[in-house]
């Protein structure tokens, strides 16, 4: 061996070493999404079976190389292309970046071990029947853990839906598209402990507005390896993710999760549900502190402090997507309300104080304009009530005046379309136009029957947020303002939700 040979060898080893280190340093989830080759273990020829659905998803949408494994062997045609069915992953000649295991739990350890032998370091296991079903399943999961450690495999799952990233053509959701609709690419990324919640919410986002919402979706199930802390870490550094939405029931690494949330929430909003709120954990200890420390009391305070926007209902989550997915952040907490119904205005005003917001005091100029434009029986102070006599033109005057007022940070546009002189089409047009300005949050609620529903659909088609009650619209302002206040507290001046 010459000196030169040694030099070359040294360089090769150094590169390998560095590559390996880089891989370990980068977030575990990044390796999954960066895959250029993908293998479905348990690929079924039945298009409705999970292994058939995932194979078809990838055949149709994934731009990289796809391999299918099925012990029966043979061939399978998908999206006009013939794929050999390998009897074992070890029979594949090319390299595989990521594999998904969709076989019954009892066969999963063998499949995982073969992945290890094939040097696949990223594996998704969607199958259920592990720790969540009791002792037997727990045993299999422990066996899997041994294999994971031995081959240093990163695992998502088991008992999950895996990953969905429309822009990357990545879709391990094993429910057929005829049943579970897929939202298109957008700025919101989601991670969820519950697969069923995830599936239903994904389906819901498809029909919400334009359906262009999702950047990355991660369902991590039993979190045998990848957990909530890995998810938040990855989405925090993912450039395409602008808004992070979370569904959690418990924590695998609560401390790290909170620390990551604290860091990432300064760059992008994080919101969601931490369910399982029952007051457990508080024990009659020797100290007052122990007696006061119920699990949810601690969780709630730590999440809030870290900047996590916690909501409690499914509906609020959808409101979060609409508000954070389409609106800029407000400069402050002063809200203007425009309504054609007194009751709606009063209820909205109540919600303003419930959400720690304030009713804006209009500038002299705005007040003068309103007073001059409207008959005396309109209430021109905040909340502005243009009454049952309102026309679409009245709405335009009122909304434009308050929207342009520097004393107003957010605008809530309430309409009960059942009044006689209001042309709903004109009103919708005015609302759409104003919502394009995106200088401040502008949220609408249309309350009533068929006209309200028709109008709501028209607005949502263009991702103009519109709700079915005054309270929901104000609460959405409340969530945006809560986040704006959090950023202000930490002197973050550049809004993560710039004009969008």
């Amino acid at each position: 061996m010459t000196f030169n040979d040694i030099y070359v060898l040294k360089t090769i080893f150094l590169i390998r070493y560095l590559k390996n280190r880089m891989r370990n340093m980068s977030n575990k989830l990044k390796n999954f999404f960066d895959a250029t080759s993908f293998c479905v273990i348990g690929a079924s020829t039945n298009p409705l079976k999970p292994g058939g659905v995932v194979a078809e998803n990838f055949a149709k949408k994934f731009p990289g190389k796809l391999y299918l494994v099925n012990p029966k062997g043979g061939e399978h045609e998908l999206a006009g292309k013939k794929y050999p069915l390998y009897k074992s992953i070890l029979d594949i000649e090319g390299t595989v970046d990521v594999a998904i295991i969709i076989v019954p739990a009892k066969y999963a350890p063998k499949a995982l071990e073969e992945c290890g032998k094939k040097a696949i370091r990223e594996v998704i296991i969607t199958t259920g029947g592990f720790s969540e079903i009791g002792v037997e399943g727990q045993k299999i999961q422990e066996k899997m853990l041994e294999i994971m450690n031995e081959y240093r495999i990163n695992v998502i799952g088991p008992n999950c839906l895996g990953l969905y990233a429309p822009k990357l053509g990545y879709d391990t959701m094993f429910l057929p598209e005829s049943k579970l609709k897929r939202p298109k690419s957008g700025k919101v990324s989601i991670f969820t402990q519950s697969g069923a919640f995830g599936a239903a919410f994904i389906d819901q986002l498809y029909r919400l507005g334009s359906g262009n919402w999702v950047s990355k979706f991660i369902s991590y199930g039993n979190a045998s390896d990848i957990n909530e802390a890995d998810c938040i870490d990855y989405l925090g550094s993912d450039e395409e993710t602008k808004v992070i939405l979370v569904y959690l029931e418990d924590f695998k690494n609560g401390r790290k999760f909170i620390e990551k949330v604290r860091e990432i929430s300064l760059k992008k909003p994080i919101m969601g549900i931490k369910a399982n709120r029952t007051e457990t954990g508080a024990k009659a200890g020797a100290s007052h502190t122990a007696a006061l420390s119920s699990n949810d009391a601690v969780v709630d305070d730590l999440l809030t402090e870290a900047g996590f926007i916690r909501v409690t209902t499914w509906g609020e989550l959808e409101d979060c997507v609409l508000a954070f997915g389409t609106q800029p952040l407000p400069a402050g907490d002063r809200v203007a309300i425009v309504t054609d119904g007194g009751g709606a205005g009063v209820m909205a005003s109540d919600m303003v104080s419930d959400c720690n917001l304030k009713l804006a005091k209009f500038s002299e100029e705005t007040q003068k304009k309103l007073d001059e434009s409207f008959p005396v029986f309109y209430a021109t102070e905040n909340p502005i009530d243009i009454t049952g006599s309102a026309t679409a033109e009245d709405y335009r005057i009122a909304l434009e005046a308050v929207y342009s007022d520097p004393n107003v940070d957010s605008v809530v546009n309430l309409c009960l379309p059942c009044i006689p002189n209001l042309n709903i089409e004109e009103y919708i047009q005015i609302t759409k136009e104003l919502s394009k300005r995106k200088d401040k949050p502008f949220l609408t609620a249309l309350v009533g029957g068929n006209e309200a529903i028709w109008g709501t659909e028209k607005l949502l088609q263009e991702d103009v947020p519109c709700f079915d009650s005054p309270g929901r619209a104000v609460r959405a302002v409340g969530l945006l303002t809560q986040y704006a206040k959090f950023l202000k507290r930490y002197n973050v001046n550049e809004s993560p939700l710039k004009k969008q």
Partner: protein
Amino acid sequence: MSEVINIFENVKKSGRNALLEHEAKDILKILGLVLPPSCLVKSEEEAVKAFHDFEGNVAMKLMSPHILHKTEEGAVVIGLDTEEKVRGVYRDYMQRFANKEIEGILVEKMVKKGIELIIGSQIDETFGPVILIGPGGVFVEVLRDVVFRMCPCTKEQALSAIEEIKTQNLLNGFRGMVKVDREKLAEQMVILSKLAWEYRDYIAEMDINPIIANEQGIFPVDARIILK
């Protein structure tokens, strides 16, 4: 901070898992907190001397490993302002607790009235050591107006916790009462959160209750530390 560990180890060696008040307060002093002047006495004459040293207004608390809840067992008497009263309490303790092991009697200068607060810590099964702050005193578990932070916490986190206390009126000088010095209170919370974090292998639970905020400052008046 081997001094702190020494105290923990000594308590363990004597077969206890709860520090006596004066032991817990020694730890707070090591950390630099300002406590009301006090003296552990072992005779009636020492008690009388301490009474005069502390300007003739003291509390007397019996220190015994057998008594964990001092107030409930009548082992705390406050506002003693004559020598006779001090002698009387001393003799009463010696008589009533004759069959108990007695470490001594803590004679402590009375702290002027103020707002009562609590700072406490415990080990949360999800987040590890956490610290709470809120209105304290005997009604702490009735009010339940406490805010949690993860240990160790920064001063900013402590200040935001104080801001999240619901009964803000209580802190802002309600009806001529003292306005609580939030900066100083936050600093104490930070110090205690570091204690709970650094000695997480020793400390299971901690109650500093009440902490009295008055015109002169913020003073931990009772302290309970339970070891693992």
